[in-house]
C-alpha cells in the first residue's frame, strides 16, 4: 500500500453539484455541515468548495455566500452535461495537486456515480451514504452510516489514507442561509480533460418532468390499500400542500411512477409530515420514511405494522377518512382552526 504522510493533507473540500446552473440542494447542506467540522480543524485550514461545470461563476459566488472560504472552479463546456469520466479525472487531478484532507460529495446519483472514480486511483478511503459526520480527537474524520436496513449505525474511519472521502445522504443536514457579505476567494483552475479522452456521451437528459419527493416538507403516500384509485391521496395531498408518494406495491401495480416510490428500492424522505394511506408498513418501506418528523397512518387493518411506526393512526376505510380529513383542513383557512 502506498505510504501517505497524512500531515501533508489539509482542508475540507465539498463538491458543489450543479446541472445547467442549478445547484443540487445537498451541496449547500454539505457545505453547512462541513463548516461545523471546520471548528475542529486548525485555523490555517480552509473550507473549499469545488465547482465543476460550464458557465458557473454565479455558482461559485453562491458557494462563498453559503460558507466556503475558497472556491476552485473548473469551467468548460466539456463539463456540461455531467459525465463520470471527465468529472472524475478533473477531481482526481485537483486532489493529487492540492492534497485535501477531507473531501465530501452529496450522495445523489451523480455524486455516487463519480466518487469512486476519484477514491480508487488516489487510494482514498471512501465511506458511502453517510448520515453523520464528526472529527475525533486525533483529527480523523468519523463517518457514520446506517447498516442492516437502518437499524445499526456504523462509524467508519480512514486513518492512514488521504483524502478521507464520504458521500452524504441528501436531506440529512440543514443548509446555511446565504450571507451576501461573506468574503472568500474564487480560483479558476486548469481544465485537465480533453473531449477526445472521454468515453461517454449524453444523448438525452430530461429532468423536471418528474417530481423530486426528497425535497418535500409534507408527503401523502399511497399503498396497496388504495387499490388503483389515487384520488383520495391526491386530494389529501392538495389539502395539506403535500407531495404525493407511494409504496412499492402501488408502483409495481403501475398506479404511479417509480420516481415517487418511497422505500428501500425507491427514495428516502425526511418530511415534517408523512401520511401513510393504505400502507401496511413493511420494513423495506419504513426504511425510506422512518426519519420523518410526524408519521400518520390510515389503514383498515388494526394489525398492520405501520401503526407501531406512526405517531397517530386511525383504523378505517381510507376513502372515507381521506375525504373527511380533506374537509377538515380545506374548510379552515388557518390549520389551527381545526383545533377549535
Amino acid at each position, binding site marked *: *500500500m502506498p505510504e501517505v504522510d497524512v500531515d501533508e493533507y489539509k482542508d475540507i473540500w465539498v463538491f458543489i453539484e450543479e446541472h445547467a446552473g442549478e445547484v443540487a440542494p445537498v451541496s449547500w447542506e454539505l457545505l453547512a455541515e462541513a463548516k461545523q467540522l471546520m471548528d475542529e480543524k486548525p485555523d490555517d485550514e480552509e473550507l473549499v468548495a469545488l465547482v465543476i461545470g460550464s458557465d458557473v461563476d454565479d455558482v461559485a459566488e453562491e458557494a462563498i455566500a453559503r460558507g466556503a472560504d475558497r472556491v476552485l472552479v473548473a469551467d468548460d463546456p466539456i463539463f456540461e*452535461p455531467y*459525465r*463520470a*469520466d471527465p468529472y*472524475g479525472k478533473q477531481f482526481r487531478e485537483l486532489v493529487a495537486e492540492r492534497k485535501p484532507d477531507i473531501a465530501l460529495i452529496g450522495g445523489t*446519483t451523480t455524486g*455516487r*456515480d*463519480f466518487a*469512486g*472514480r476519484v*477514491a*480508487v486511483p488516489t*487510494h482514498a*478511503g*471512501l465511506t*458511502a451514504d453517510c448520515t453523520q459526520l464528526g472529527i475525533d480527537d486525533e483529527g480523523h474524520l468519523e463517518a457514520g452510516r*446506517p447498516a*442492516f*436496513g437502518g437499524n*445499526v*449505525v456504523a*462509524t*467508519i*474511519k*480512514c*486513518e492512514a489514507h488521504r483524502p478521507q472521502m464520504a458521500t452524504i445522504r441528501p436531506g440529512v443536514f440543514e443548509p446555511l442561509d446565504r450571507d451576501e457579505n461573506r468574503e472568500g476567494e474564487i480560483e479558476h483552475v486548469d481544465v485537465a480533460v480533453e473531449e477526445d479522452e472521454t468515453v*461517454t*456521451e*449524453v*444523448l*438525452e*437528459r*430530461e429532468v*423536471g418532468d418528474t*417530481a*423530486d419527493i*426528497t425535497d418535500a416538507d*409534507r408527503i401523502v403516500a399511497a399503498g396497496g390499500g388504495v387499490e388503483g384509485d389515487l384520488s383520495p391521496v391526491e386530494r389529501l395531498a392538495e389539502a395539506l400542500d403535500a407531495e404525493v408518494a407511494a409504496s412499492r406495491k402501488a408502483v409495481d401495480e403501475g398506479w404511479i411512477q*417509480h420516481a415517487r416510490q418511497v422505500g*428501500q428500492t425507491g427514495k428516502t424522505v425526511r418530511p415534517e*409530515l408523512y401520511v401513510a394511506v393504505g400502507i401496511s408498513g413493511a*420494513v423495506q418501506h419504513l426504511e425510506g420514511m422512518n*426519519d420523518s418528523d*410526524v408519521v*400518520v397512518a390510515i389503514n383498515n387493518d388494526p394489525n398492520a405494522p405501520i401503526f*407501531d411506526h*406512526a*405517531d*397517530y*393512526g*386511525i*383504523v378505517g376505510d381510507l376513502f372515507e*377518512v381521506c375525504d373527511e380529513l380533506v374537509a377538515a*383542513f380545506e374548510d379552515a383557512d388557518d*390549520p*389551527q382552526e*381545526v*383545533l377549535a
Partner: protein
Amino acid sequence: MTDNWTVVVGIKQVPDEDDVTIDPDTGTLNRAEAAAILNPPDRNALEAALQLKDEVGAEVIAFTMGPPTATPVLDLAVALGCDDAALISDMAFAGSDTWPTSLTLAYATEYFDADVGIFGEETTDSSTGQVPPGIAAHLDWAQLTYVEDLDPRPEDDQLVATRDVEGGHEVVAADLPVIVAVGYGDNEPRPAGLHRKLYAETEFEPIELDAEELGIDPDEVGLDASPTQVGGMDTADPVEREQKVVDSVEDLAAAIAEEGVV
C-alpha cells in the same frame, strides 16, 4: 474482441433481510437465523445481462467473490441462463472494504476478457453502491450507473443506457468496454427454466479462481489493504413513535394540526 460480446455479471450472497428480525423487547437485530440469498439487486443485474444475451448473442459469465458457501448464487445464475460461473475465493480477500473488493472484481473482469461488466446497484447488506464505480476506476473503463434499461449497439462498439437520475432520466452512450450498475427493481427478472435448474442444482461445478490465478498481489487486498476501518457499530435507537390510534377523523385532524406540520 470477438464477434459476440463477453458479458460478466458480479453477484453476491447476502443475508435475507426479510428474515432479519427485530426483537420486539430489546430493539436489537437478529441476523443469525437469516437465510443466505442472492443480493436482490443482482437479480436485476443478471436479467439485464441475459437480455443482452437474447438481443445480441452475448456470452454471459457470472462470478462471485466469497467463501465456498456462496456457490448457490452461482448455481442460480447458471439456472437462469448464464453460460458459466466462477467462484473467486481466497483467504487473502478477508476483511476487504470496497477498494480491494473492486480491485479483485476488476481483475476478474479482465480475466474473462469482458466487454461489459454488469453489477447490481448496491448490496442490501452494505449498501454503499461504490463497487461498480470502483471497478470502472481500477480498469479506467467507461461506467453507467443507475441503469434502467440497456440498448446494445455492437455495430458501433457502444452500449447505450437509460439512467434513472433525480427528477428524471438520461440516455448515455458509452464506448466499450464498460461497467454497468443496474438499478434495483428496474427490470422483471425471469424464472429459471426447469432443465437448467436441474442441471445447475445437481451437476454444475463452478470455475474456481484464487488470487494467484487472477494475478492479484495479496498485499493489495484484504483487511490491511482496506483504507477504511469500522470504528464502531451502535444499534440505532429505534425511532420513538407515539403510536396513538385515535377513534375519529376529527381527533386525527386535531393531532396533525397540533403538531404544527401543516
